[in-house]
């Protein structure tokens, strides 16, 4: 039986010059007990479609046409007031951002209970009992305690569970999950998706899963709807789409999804392996970190040891990945290597110099050889500078060349990262996320460093953009002989780019080795857990 049927849905937003249609006649069905994945890049209109279904478009948004049939009743033209009887009751929404979606000043028990009160439950004891039942249902330990806690006392995964509890409170027939796990670590992501899957199985709830990750869709959905530029380009059973995509765009998405790669992709052998004299050189390692320790003082408690006796070596011209969940100390390690933080113990040997004990001016000189690329390209570029200024910044700081030389070098770098020339006099806000990250990479390369530290450099990007950036990084490494230290929580990406891997957990390295070996024979249980959490992997392995 069809729970939701969408036909010819058109949505437009008010822009500066009139209305702009962003969803052009999207249609699909969701039947009972089925997970349908709405897949597409950012800007493809997938979130807009999901929100338009229950009339939750942001200001300026409007449904211009089409039908949204919920159990046979067309609710497309309904007023907000009428829709209130639908929201929560027949359709539950799991929002994208578990941090911003909970009220920080009220205990979560009250927030989950709110939906019951809004929909007419007056008996405080009944509400309380139901809230505890719901919190238990979504797998929170000790619901009694949790219901009294505030959002900031819970982890990201727990908060997402709370939001799911709210969504299922009134036993809706359909749950719309808008990128429910994008902000979460891989293992947490898997548990949350398992939870949604379990709810579907046990209660027969249908799920509309909005995601940019084809891996997640492949894992969890029975049917996949691929959106591009506000149009459905392909729709069908998940297995069919994965096995034989008909549309070129779907094929592209499949090729770009790192998790779905079949076979093992071996990065091409780096230069030094082919060059016997270089291989025989004394020190083949660009970075040798030994026994790194970093503690942070916590008021009134034992100091928190973020990095605990971490050692690794990176061969020149190769990529070493530090993998772990948030809080595992991988970013702190990266900041120790780049000397934004001072290690409490241990040594970092960078091409023969121990950088652990450098003075302030020596650290500045160190930046000529080691550069950092940040996770978020929206915050790492100065919004007031032009792209040319941003890229030439390191040259300016090190007083390299004249103004004209610097401009020429900036143009050359922009060319190298495959951006069109006319971006040079634009500002970052005029570029997309992927373009901004290319600019950040160009800036890192400006001073011709030997080592580039990439701190979750592709995590904030869509899969297709991510794939392009990874290709760029690979080719730059080939041409310039760069050494990468690649920080990531995403094993699928790591498999694609890195030669060697260190898996970190709670500040310690639990497993280390060549990427292929580690993926084939993980010895530590935590590594196995991380590997199992990579979405889409089981499908491919089977």
């Amino acid at each position, binding site marked *: 039986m069809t729970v939701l049927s969408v036909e010819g849905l058109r949505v437009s*937003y*008010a*822009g*500066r*010059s009139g209305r*702009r249609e*962003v969803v052009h006649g999207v249609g699909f069905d969701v039947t009972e007990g089925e997970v349908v994945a709405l897949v597409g890049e*950012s*800007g493809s*209109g997938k*979130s*807009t479609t999901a*929100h338009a279904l229950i009339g939750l*478009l*942001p*200001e*300026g*948004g409007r449904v211009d046409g089409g039908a949204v049939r919920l159990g046979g009743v067309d609710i497309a033209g309904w007023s907000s007031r009428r829709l209130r009887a639908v929201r929560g009751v027949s359709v539950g929404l799991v929002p994208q951002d578990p941090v911003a979606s909970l009220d920080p000043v009220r205990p979560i028990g009250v927030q989950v209970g709110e939906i019951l009160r809004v929909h007419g439950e007056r008996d405080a004891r009944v509400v309380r009992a139901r809230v505890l039942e719901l919190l238990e249902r979504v797998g929170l330990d000790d619901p009694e305690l949790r219901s009294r806690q505030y959002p900031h006392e819970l982890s990201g995964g727990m908060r997402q569970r709370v939001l799911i509890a709210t969504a299922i409170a009134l036993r809706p027939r359909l749950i719309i999950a808008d990128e429910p796990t994008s902000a979460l670590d891989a293992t947490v992501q898997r548990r949350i998706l398992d939870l949604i899957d379990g709810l579907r199985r046990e209660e027969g709830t249908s799920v509309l899963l909005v995601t940019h990750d084809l891996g997640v869709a492949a894992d969890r959905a029975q049917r996949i709807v691929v959106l591009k530029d506000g149009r459905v380009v392909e729709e069908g059973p998940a297995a069919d789409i994965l096995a034989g995509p008909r549309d070129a765009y779907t094929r592209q998405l499949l090729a770009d999804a790192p998790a779905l790669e079949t076979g093992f992709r071996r990065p091409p052998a780096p230069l030094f392996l082919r060059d016997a004299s270089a291989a025989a050189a004394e020190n083949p390692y660009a970075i040798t970190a030994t026994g790194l320790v970093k503690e942070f003082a916590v008021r009134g408690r034992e100091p928190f040891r973020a990095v605990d006796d971490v050692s690794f070596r990176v061969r020149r011209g190769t990529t070493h990945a530090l993998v772990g969940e948030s809080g595992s100390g991988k970013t702190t390690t990266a900041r120790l290597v*780049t000397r*934004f933080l001072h290690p409490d113990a241990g040594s970092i040997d960078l091409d023969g110099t121990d950088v652990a004990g450098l003075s302030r001016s020596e650290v*500045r000189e160190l*930046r*000529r050889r080691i*550069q*950092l690329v*940040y996770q*978020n390209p929206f*915050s*790492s*570029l*100065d*919004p*007031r*500078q032009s792209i040319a200024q941003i890229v030439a*910044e*390191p040259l*300016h*700081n*090190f007083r390299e060349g004249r103004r004209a030389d610097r401009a020429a070098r900036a143009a050359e770098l922009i060319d190298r990262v495959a951006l069109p020339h006319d971006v040079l006099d*634009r*500002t970052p*806000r*005029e570029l997309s996320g992927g373009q901004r990250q290319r600019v*950040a990479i160009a*800036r*890192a390369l*400006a*001073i011709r460093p030997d080592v580039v530290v990439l701190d979750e450099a592709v995590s904030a990007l869509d899969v297709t953009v991510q794939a392009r950036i990874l290709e760029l990084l690979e080719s730059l490494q080939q041409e310039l002989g760069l050494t990468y230290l690649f920080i990531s929580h995403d094993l699928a990406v790591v498999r694609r780019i890195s030669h060697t891997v260190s898996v970190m957990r709670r500040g310690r390295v639990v497993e280390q080795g060549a990427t292929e070996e580690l993926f084939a024979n993980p010895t530590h249980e935590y590594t196995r857990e991380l590997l199992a959490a990579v979405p889409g992997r089981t499908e491919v392995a089977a």
Partner: protein
Amino acid sequence: MTAPVLPPEIDAVRSAARDEASGVVADPIEADAAAESGRPARRSTIARLFARGRRPSWTLVLAVAVVVIAVLWALIPWAFTGYDPIHGVPAEKLQPPSLEHWFGTDAIGRDLYARVVHGAVHSLSGALIAVTVGLAAGTIIGVVAGSVGGIVDEILMRIVDVLLSIPGLLLMLSVIILLGFGTVNAAIAVGVVSVASFARLSRSEVVRVRRSDYVEAAFGSGGTFFSVLRRHVLPNSLTAVIGLAALQFGTAILAISTLGFLGYGAPPPTPEWGLLIAEGRNYVATAWWLTTLPGLVVLVVVLSANRISQSLGRSSR
């Protein structure tokens, strides 16, 4: 460190910016979807001021017009009135507003409109001095505190706390007692009082920008303390401070008028706005125009300055 409690006027600038940021489109992804494709036009700050929608808001146009007229009064008063602001015609004393004397005349027959026009230079230059003193001293303190940090920050901000804890009017009067009477000294006194707000705001902005990734990236690409401060921190943190300066301009006109009213500002017969209102006080029952009309002029100019400051604050995000 205690959380800084922002003075209400800064909050006003901030909340206007927040409304602006959150009001239009709630979800950034949706906003992306709604944006026109291709490159958006680049605009200067001034151009952006008027870029709210396709046409500028009429209140903003009105506010700018009022301020322009007030500035013209100060620069070329003779172009607006033919009457002498100091020497009156005793025979025409205490006349109500008419076509001949737009604002009426005062007790010794001087044209009130002429006095308001000629008084603009005193009030506006006073406000300019006050804002300059506050902006310069406050911003320097704030930027130093925010960028150096540590013990310097603590010391400077505690001094600012002390300044904030003294009631504004009392502080102004104390400064005037120390410096002596007069328009310029009154203006300096008003400026000293606003130092604290400027310091607070600029420090908070500098601290916000300093924590951003692009400042760290600038240090990471070999920037020295001063080059990063000049190239990244200052340009990105001073927009809100400029907004506050426009707001303070209105407040300063009001404060200088207050001091003039109390007799701490310019001595009579200077046609300073506060003094005009004070002189008219004795005739409230018989000649309402002597207090009301100059009072309205002050009110309209201050409101206009606030309106402009509000849109500066909006365009800063």
